[in-house]
């Protein structure tokens, strides 16, 4: 009986200090304390940060130029990166031996354990600019002294002999950023329109809400297809990219606008807002001093939950061939390669590598968003 009564030891003496800390803990500290309890979200946050780092440093991390073709290694299978050789640390891949199967008329690759190709870190490479402005001449890893005929395809190669790993890493740049840019556009549209709707009320509110309902009632894929079909073929890839983000954020802003409007309406009735008005604060002051700080955490959570849908939208459009087009590399474009069944049967890595990247990033963002949403109102349980 007695063991139940006593407190866990670590909370005993520090309890007072903790209480004092909590007393002066502002909104973001409480937010973080509550978020920390959501372990899956915490892990997801790490995963997300890692993925965005990889995307930002794609040029450095990808061992090959994503567009470099090699006709010798079409549909080459993934090569296993082994760390140990003869009991000592020597990262290496086995050289691929190619034979032509005369029956199926296919090239067949087999790893040859007798010919290990050493892999090392920070290998010299063609000069490039990291993040577009840092001149670099090394890559994170690669073959130590590549000769023609040597290869290191950790996730295999596609029909032109391009390295899938490098392509997925480069694809992350577009696929992950399209979510961010799209969400940013949604944010601006959603907060402005939702704010106007909630603030003015009346017929403005009515009109905006009906517009949102109208937009949400249109089936998304045909709508996107309609817009995407209107993009001139001759446009440069960058411009196409921005138009596509605009199209995918066209739907995204509606839910955000609703969230903002709802928060506006519920907060306007709060006593502390009335108190601020009685203090003589202007409406603009109330919005920026009281309303925005109260719902900013909700907005962050909603935004995080919106990114995966943007990523999926881009993927879907590109997969259907109406989004981004080669030579732009995105995960959706990579999946296009896996559209025909023969390619999938012969080289399943074409499908699984980009798909895994998409699934991991979407799941992680969803978990992160869930955690943020749960922590968004840290005052529910504190008081």
């Amino acid at each position, binding site marked *: 009986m007695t063991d*139940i009564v006593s407190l866990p030891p670590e909370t005993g003496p520090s309890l007072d200090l903790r209480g004092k800390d909590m007393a002066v803990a*502002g*909104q973001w500290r409480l937010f973080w304390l509550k978020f920390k309890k959501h372990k899956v979200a915490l892990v997801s946050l790490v995963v997300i940060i890692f993925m965005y780092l990889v995307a930002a440093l794609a040029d450095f991390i990808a061992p090959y130029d994503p567009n470099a073709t090699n006709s010798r290694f079409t549909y080459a299978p993934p090569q296993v990166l082994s760390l140990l050789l003869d009991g000592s640390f020597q990262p290496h891949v086995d050289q691929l031996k190619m034979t032509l199967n005369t029956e199926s008329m296919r090239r067949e690759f087999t790893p040859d354990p007798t010919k290990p190709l050493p892999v090392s870190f920070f290998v010299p490479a063609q000069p490039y600019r990291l993040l577009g402005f840092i001149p670099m001449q090394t890559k994170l890893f690669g073959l130590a002294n590549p000769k023609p005929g040597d290869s290191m395809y950790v996730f295999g190669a596609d029909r032109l002999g391009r390295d899938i790993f490098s392509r997925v890493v480069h694809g992350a740049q577009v696929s992950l950023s399209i979510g961010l840019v799209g969400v940013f556009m949604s944010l601006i549209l959603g907060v402005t329109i939702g704010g106007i709707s909630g603030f003015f009320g009346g017929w403005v509110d009515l009109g905006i809400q009906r517009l949102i309902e109208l937009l949400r009632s249109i089936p998304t894929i045909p709508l996107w297809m309609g817009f995407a079909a209107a993009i001139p073929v001759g446009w440069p890839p960058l411009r196409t990219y921005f138009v596509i983000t605009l199209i995918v954020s066209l739907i995204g802003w509606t839910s955000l606008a609703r969230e903002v409007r709802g928060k506006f309406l519920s907060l306007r009735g709060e006593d*502390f807002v009335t*108190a601020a008005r*009685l*203090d003589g604060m202007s409406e603009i002051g109330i919005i920026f001093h009281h309303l925005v700080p109260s719902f900013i955490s909700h907005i962050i959570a909603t935004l995080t939950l919106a990114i995966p849908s943007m990523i999926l939208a881009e993927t879907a459009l590109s997969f259907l061939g109406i989004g981004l087009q080669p030579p732009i590399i995105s995960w959706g474009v990579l999946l296009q390669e896996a559209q025909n069944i023969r390619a999938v049967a012969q080289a399943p890595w074409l499908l699984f590598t980009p798909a895994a990247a998409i699934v991991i990033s979407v799941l992680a963002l969803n978990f992160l968003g869930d955690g943020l949403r749960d922590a968004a109102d840290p*005052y529910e349980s504190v008081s």
Partner: protein
Amino acid sequence: MSDTILQVRDLRTVFPTRTGLFKAVDGVSFDLKRGQTLCVVGESGSGKSVTARSILQIVDRPGRIESGSILLTRADGSITDLAKLDPRGRDIRSVRGKEIAMIFQEPMSSLSPVHRIGTQIGETLRIHFGTSKHEQRERVLELLRQVEIPRPESAIDRYTFEFSGGMRQRVMIAMALACNPSVLIADEPTTALDVTTQAEILDLIRKLQKSHGMAVLFITHDMGVVAEIADDVLVMYRGKVMETGPVEQIFHAPQDEYTRRLIGSVVKLEKKAEARTARAAIPAGTKPLLDVRNLSMTFPSGLKAVDDVSLTVRPGETLGIVGESGSGKTTMGRCLLRIYDPQAGSIDYRRPDGQTIDIRTADKASLQKVRREVRMIFQDPVGSLSPRKNVGQIIAEPLKLAGMRGRELDDRVAELMLQVGLEPSWRERYPHAFSGGQRQRIGIARAIAVNPRLIVADEATSALDVSLRSQMLDLMMKLQDELGLSYVFISHDMSVIRYMCDRVAVMYRGKIVETGDTDQVINAPAHDYTRALLSAIPHPDPRNRRMHNRFRYDASRAASANG
């Protein structure tokens, strides 16, 4: 021994929290006897509700009963220890509703809005006795008649939202009575109701207790209710029993220090504050600070919340506005600051230079000036402070908007915090670190920051425990004397009005039915509604139970009698 129907011994209920086990109920023991009423009384967080819920094993997760016994003497004479039963098992379910019934504080959320009340009450009968549809209806009608619901034949097919709060509580009671329980647990059943409705419900419970011979476990924080209905009293504080005994002893010879303080703070509110009895009267010829004439306010829904209200507030005076919920007193208070826009009438406010401004029609600039001189204290100490700003920022806000900056601002905030009894070093703390009473002090500091002349206090003490109430009122009176303030004090609670108000206006359905000096209105009410209101207030003295002799006011009858 055969008299005792429920015997609770050393009950402990705990809630695991981040920092360890929270002992909500810590070694509580009591006996409940047949036909008797045991009142469990305590302030918020004292564990009185958890005690009641533990008996039926319906403690909210993750709470659990850790030890102790709850021995129930059943109808066949056998004794069952409820604490040992599986909370989801068949055994405890056969006890719930059938032998021990419970009624809750909030009748709206404890009844389902999608079922007709007949079905809801009938369900209990079906579960415990398998009563057929036809018999169910007969029995439900009989129950509705017992709880004095008018026209039971039509009421039985109505939904809960078609009833008023008091009627809903009657439905809850009918449901509780359906299986003729031997124990009725009532968890603050009248807290959400107006005093006049409360009086009726208490009457009903007592009547039914007599006719059914039930034991009643009545949980309340209101010492007045305790004095009116209890046979025995159990005083709880922080999960522990402080004192238990017959109601006479608790009120007139309390043994425990905490009980003494609790009774003391209740009794203190039974008369006028000492600080106010000796105060010199305000000269009759003084020009009013606020002169409200024929004020009317209709909401867009068509509800006429304020109907032709006229009143005056003189400098240095406290005017009480008393009324039940829905009487329009809060709306009226909010109109005084133009939070709502009243449609008709005038609110003439006299500025220090003698010039008067009609707040109802004032333009933006003069309204802003007036709002620095007329301030508001809100009812809800949680909702009225932004949780995202620390105390220093909250109190500084009106000062900043008035143009104060830097060192001067810091000094003023510190001064204000001292003035309302808060430690200036707490300025970095956020509202969540403060108790309800402290938060209300922060609200007061914000209100007096810009040296106002009139403060509208809307139910400023009703969210506080009784022991804090008199402290808060004393603070407000201290500030009144120091700063020469006038108050419009809105409350549903006659005792706080009597404690601090010089004059009182009684509101009923948007109209002011009576105005006068507090003593005169309380001792010699002129209007029937005031008499009914006063007589329904539970009196915290078990030797002087008066509620069942109360005066009832029927608005329609009064109207027809007056022509």
